[in-house]
């Protein structure tokens, strides 16, 4: 395309005036309107509402059996690969553990560049050197690091632009989530809930890396909610934020799920509700000021992090249009909240629950702690966890991975806080059919499933938010940490620890197609389009596999 001379001068002038490249590839407006360009996958959760629903519809129930492998990228790094790629105008931005970023041709898998950041060897994380992806704004991608830095990287050259310390690695702050860009800021939260951190969500100027605001997930002295902690418990009470939040541009609110209080398993050691642990917080996107909160599990003794993705949906509620937030919680209840006010609308158990006998009219659980030595349901990894759900506006159903019939026996003890050290307050044992028999763990233990479904199993649930009831369920033999993807052709794509990548009818749960990829799927599949052709990408084991429809033979 040739620009007229005048227009070119105008553009140059604009660049000079703004001091920022207005021709930047992904301005904020594009992210707000991500749904209008389904060929791309612009945020961790596919858009600010985090629905992981794509309007692409080339792949359908009628042709899903024609999916074939188009290309693969092999990861050279040991460990579970939880990353979620972005796709922008034919380029895929992908991370691998601990902190590599790759730019890959989304059509062929060929690599443009690879950026390697080596985190400090002091980095401490509870559950693996994970990284779940990058955020993009303009010509920059942003990655949080295992040693709690935020790094800005040029999308074209793969070279770092700035690097800001977000948290102190010596106190076991870490970042495993993909950041969230809102307007001209990069929002990120920190991990460290097993190490006695004081959690926070913070915003950084995208251009400079300068901190714009910080919201502590544990209120300090004088702030509302501080009274829910005793003595100095608030200083090392955990409440991390390690999964990407959501954003409602009209309300200018950004929503974040907050993790467990510390020490994890000894609630007696930290009397009080322990706000804002196990809560969702709604923050003013410009200032980080708290607008409302809702706590799912007060004074949690089960490690029921509420670090699920806040899924935003505009739909009718009791006959009237409403702005909702849908939430399948680690504590075993699936919730609907009013996302304008935080008002509790409904909460329904979706797996076996015995830590509480129900919720009161304000959504507060009636806790029923089990006697010492007796199993608690759901178990420590929860009824669900961080695995990204999906909401399809077409089916009106909410999809997520559940762990059914999975329980653990908890043991509490006093723990003393020491900076950078585990701060757990006891332990737990997974309920197994025989003493010493293998149990389900954080991540698949190997190709032989010698723990079996007797210690719990996976179930993909399709829940009707209007009633909280499960409309259909798809049972799996092993548990699943896989996220969900729905499309406008009413397909649901997901995986599981067994390495099967399957496509289901999103309305009925009927299995339509599957591929055995031979390694655990611990991320959510994405879909995108290049040159008019729809692709699906999923990571299994050490391999990212991209599928597309078989071309008609001539």
């Amino acid at each position: 395309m040739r620009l007229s001379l005048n227009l070119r001068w105008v553009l140059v002038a604009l660049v000079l005036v703004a001091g920022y490249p207005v021709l930047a590839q992904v301005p904020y407006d594009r992210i707000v309107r991500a749904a209008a360009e389904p060929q791309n996958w612009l945020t961790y959760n596919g858009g600010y509402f985090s629905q992981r629903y794509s309007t692409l519809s080339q792949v359908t129930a009628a042709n899903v059996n024609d999916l074939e492998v188009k290309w693969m990228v092999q990861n050279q790094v040991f460990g579970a690969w939880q990353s979620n790629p972005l796709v922008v105008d034919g380029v895929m931005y992908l991370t691998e553990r601990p902190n590599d970023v790759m730019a890959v041709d989304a059509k062929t898998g060929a690599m443009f560049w690879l950026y390697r950041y080596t985190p400090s060897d002091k980095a401490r994380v509870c559950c693996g050197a994970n990284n779940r992806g990058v955020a993009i704004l303009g010509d920059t991608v942003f990655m949080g690091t295992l040693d709690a830095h935020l790094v800005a990287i040029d999308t074209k050259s793969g070279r770092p632009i700035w690097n800001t310390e977000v948290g102190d690695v010596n106190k076991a702050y870490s970042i495993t989530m993909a950041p969230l860009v809102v307007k001209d800021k990069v929002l990120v939260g920190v991990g460290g809930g097993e190490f006695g951190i004081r959690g926070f969500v913070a915003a950084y100027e995208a251009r400079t890396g300068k901190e714009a605001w910080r919201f502590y997930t544990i209120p300090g002295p004088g702030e509302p909610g501080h009274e829910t902690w005793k003595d100095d418990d608030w200083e090392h009470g955990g409440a991390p934020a390690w999964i990407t939040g959501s954003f409602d541009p009209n309300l200018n609110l950004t929503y974040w799920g907050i993790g467990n209080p510390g020490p994890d398993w000894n609630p007696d050691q930290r009397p009080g509700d322990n706000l804002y642990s196990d809560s969702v917080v709604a923050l003013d996107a410009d200032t980080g000021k708290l607008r409302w909160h809702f706590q799912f599990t007060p004074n949690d003794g089960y490690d029921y992090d509420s670090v699920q993705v806040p899924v935003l949906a505009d739909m009718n509620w009791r006959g009237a249009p409403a702005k909702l937030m849908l939430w399948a919680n680690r504590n075993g209840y699936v919730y609907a909240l009013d996302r304008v006010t935080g008002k509790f609308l409904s909460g329904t158990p979706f797996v076996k629950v015995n830590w509480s006998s129900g919720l009161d009219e304000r959504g507060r659980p009636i806790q029923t702690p089990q006697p010492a030595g007796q199993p608690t349901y759901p178990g420590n990894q929860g009824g669900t966890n961080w695995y990204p759900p999906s909401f399809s506006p077409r089916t009106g159903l909410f999809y997520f991975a559940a762990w059914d019939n999975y329980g653990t026996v908890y043991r509490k003890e006093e723990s003393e806080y020491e900076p950078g050290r585990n701060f757990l307050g006891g332990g737990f044992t997974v309920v197994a059919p025989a003493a010493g028999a293998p149990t389900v763990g954080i991540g698949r233990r190997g190709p032989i499933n010698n723990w079996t479904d007797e210690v719990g199993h996976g179930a993909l649930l399709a829940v009707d938010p209007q009633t909280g009831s499960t409309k259909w369920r798809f049972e799996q033999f092993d548990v699943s940490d896989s996220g969900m993807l729905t499309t406008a052709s009413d397909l649901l794509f997901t995986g599981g620890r067994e390495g099967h990548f399957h496509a289901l009818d999103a309305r009925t749960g009927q299995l339509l197609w599957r591929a055995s990829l031979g390694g655990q799927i611990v991320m959510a599949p994405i879909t995108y389009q290049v040159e008019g052709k729809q692709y699906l990408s999923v990571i299994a084991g050490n391999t990212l596999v991209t599928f597309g429809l078989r071309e008609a033979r001539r």
Partner: protein
Amino acid sequence: MTMPRSVLIILGVAGLLAGAPERGDAQGSQDHQYTSQDIEAGSRVYTAQCALCHGVNGDTVSGIDLRRGKFRRSISDEDIAGVIAAGVPAAGMPGFTLRPAEVTAILAFIRAGFDPSGVAVKVGNVARGQELYASKGKCATCHRIAANGPRTAPDLTDIGAARSPAALQRALLDPTASMWPINRPVHIVTKDGREIRGRRLNEDTYTVQLIDQDERLVSLNKADLKVFEVGKTSPMPSAAGTFTADEVADLVAYLLSLKGMQ
């Protein structure tokens, strides 16, 4: 298997990053005796910090078998604690910064032979146990050791490396309650009328793998099955009642001596 030093170092670091122990403080040792809490806590710390390189059974680094108390240099608990703290750089083992209670827990776990239940089990005479295995026990009717015996029941070639004395005793006295679920007997009828009985080897959402009564490896799609039953009762008779306590101890001793291919 020996690993290049660089790989070991990477694995060591990965182990540090990969896992917080699932439990924290252990009780301190008292009167020179580790408590069952120590041992149990140690199993968690071990799994998180040590198992990646040393293996679930403590025997994947050549020349070392932690579970059976075989070390390269260490003799005392103090020696082992020193190695944990300083590492063995020449062998690729990094030093670990653990709190004293965690070191105590690991020692307890190692000294208890990796048995979280921490039961002191009487271990008898290997030769008498071997005789009982062949004669009164009729164990070789179903079990296999090295290349000898049928494959009907799980292979015992390295059972002494894979199980603690307490677990072996439990398995002898109460086979049904101690059977690992993966080993359960299965009864299958396919939609085309084929009947199959065998022992389960692996299973996932769509398929099941087993060894049938004729010792064939069989893999089936569940969608092709009319009947798929997983039995909860072990086909193995209990030693309780038929064997004396001393005889059980001898069998435990023999099974413990089965360490696999050297």
